[in-house]
């Protein structure tokens, strides 16, 4: 098993920590993992992304140009990375602020109105966990328990009181995505 994924959005949307949580979860499960952030001045202007690879075998390159999954948390990221999803792959995006939805027909596209859900949870910061939940539901790259275990590592001690909230967010993400019918079936391809 090998899953290569890219998470992209604005800085502050929790893109990097979301990826790191996945990576830790993979580690918890004894998998080979790599986490590669975008770095340097291209971060000015506030966009960030990271590439996470979870695999049973040794990982060659931590930097890739095409992915099994792309998670886009805003319009620019969606525009930039829609084409980077491999045919048959998964494009999951936060849909609340997206005006131009993706157009590809050869991939699985999953819009998640995570921002809306986050407002319901009265904490915008949970947005990325909701999306992560949705992703886990769709891909099963790592188990939910592993992710929770990972969260405990990623979150600094002083935020551990937020763990339950994050778990709720995670589960909420899973629910909404099961409900949401998606536009293209793998079978369509």
């Amino acid at each position, binding site marked *: 098993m090998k899953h290569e994924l890219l998470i992209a959005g604005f800085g502050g949307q929790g893109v990097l920590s979301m990826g790191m949580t996945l990576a830790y979860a993979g580690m918890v499960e004894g998998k080979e993992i790599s986490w590669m952030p975008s770095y340097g001045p291209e971060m*000015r*202007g506030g966009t960030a992304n990271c590439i996470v690879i979870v695999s049973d075998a040794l990982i060659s390159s931590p930097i890739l140009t095409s992915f099994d999954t792309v998670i886009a948390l805003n319009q620019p990221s969606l525009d930039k990375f829609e084409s980077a999803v491999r045919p048959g792959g998964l494009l999951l995006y936060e849909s609340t602020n997206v005006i131009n939805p993706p157009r590809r027909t050869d991939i699985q596209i999953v819009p998640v109105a995570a921002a809306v859900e986050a407002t319901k949870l009265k904490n915008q910061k949970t947005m990325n966990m909701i999306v992560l939940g949705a992703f886990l539901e769709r891909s099963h790259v790592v188990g939910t328990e592993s992710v929770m275990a990972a969260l405990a590592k990623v979150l600094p001690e002083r935020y551990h009181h937020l763990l339950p909230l994050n778990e709720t967010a995670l589960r909420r993400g899973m629910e909404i995505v099961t409900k949401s019918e998606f536009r293209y079936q793998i079978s369509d391809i």
Partner: protein
Amino acid sequence: MAQHLAQPNPVDAGVSTDGLDCVYMRPSETLTDTPLHYCPGCAHGVVHRILMEVVEELGIQEKTIGVAPVGCSVFAYHYMNIDMQEAAHGRASAVASAIKRILPDRIVFSYQGDGDLAAIGTAETIHTANRGENILVVFINNAIYGMTGGQMAPTTLLGMKTTTSPTGRTVETAGFPLKIADIVATLPGTCYVTRHSVHTPNAVRQLKKAITRSFQYQKEHRGTCFVEVVSNCPSGWKMTPLEANKWLAENMFPLYPPGDLKVPGERSKP
């Protein structure tokens, strides 16, 4: 000030501007349309705009050559619609000195950060000023290394937390904040050394005057002009732009007070 009367097409159609004159718009000639890549609220953008306003108003676009070294403003040439050179870290004033000596009738300026000008570029800064090179040095002092992610700069305040002074700058490990403008002002090669900021509308107006003066002096071969702009770095400081500008006024001004450090008396060069 031609461009001030030119009628632009208002972007948000809602507002009506009938019977109103345009009294302020971005310089149309000297500032490109490329959106600035700087973080929200970053002072670099204001200083870029003011510099280009002056170039446009003085009608010296054809004569002006800028030098920006690496630092967040390394991309200045994306925004300033004039001939520009990107310089190695710390060497902008050496590069600018050479350009000016090759093209003495051009207006040459360097645009440098505090890491660039006051750390790795210290020797070039001092000797450029000491030679009295006929250029303008614009010094963006945000007390931090912005581009590389918020490390301590020579100008970082004591006690200030940065990624390389996580518990706050201490004299024991890192010495004192370096007031390089004060040093430069002592050098006979400089004719005009002044410290400004852009955190209020009036500060911006003052800065614009200072830059205009500097270009004037350069035309008169008065020697080196040095304009420090006490700036913010919301990202590096981990503050909102508003907090940053407030912090700047409260914490940086005591050490880096705005005002002229040196104004030309009789020409410092015969």
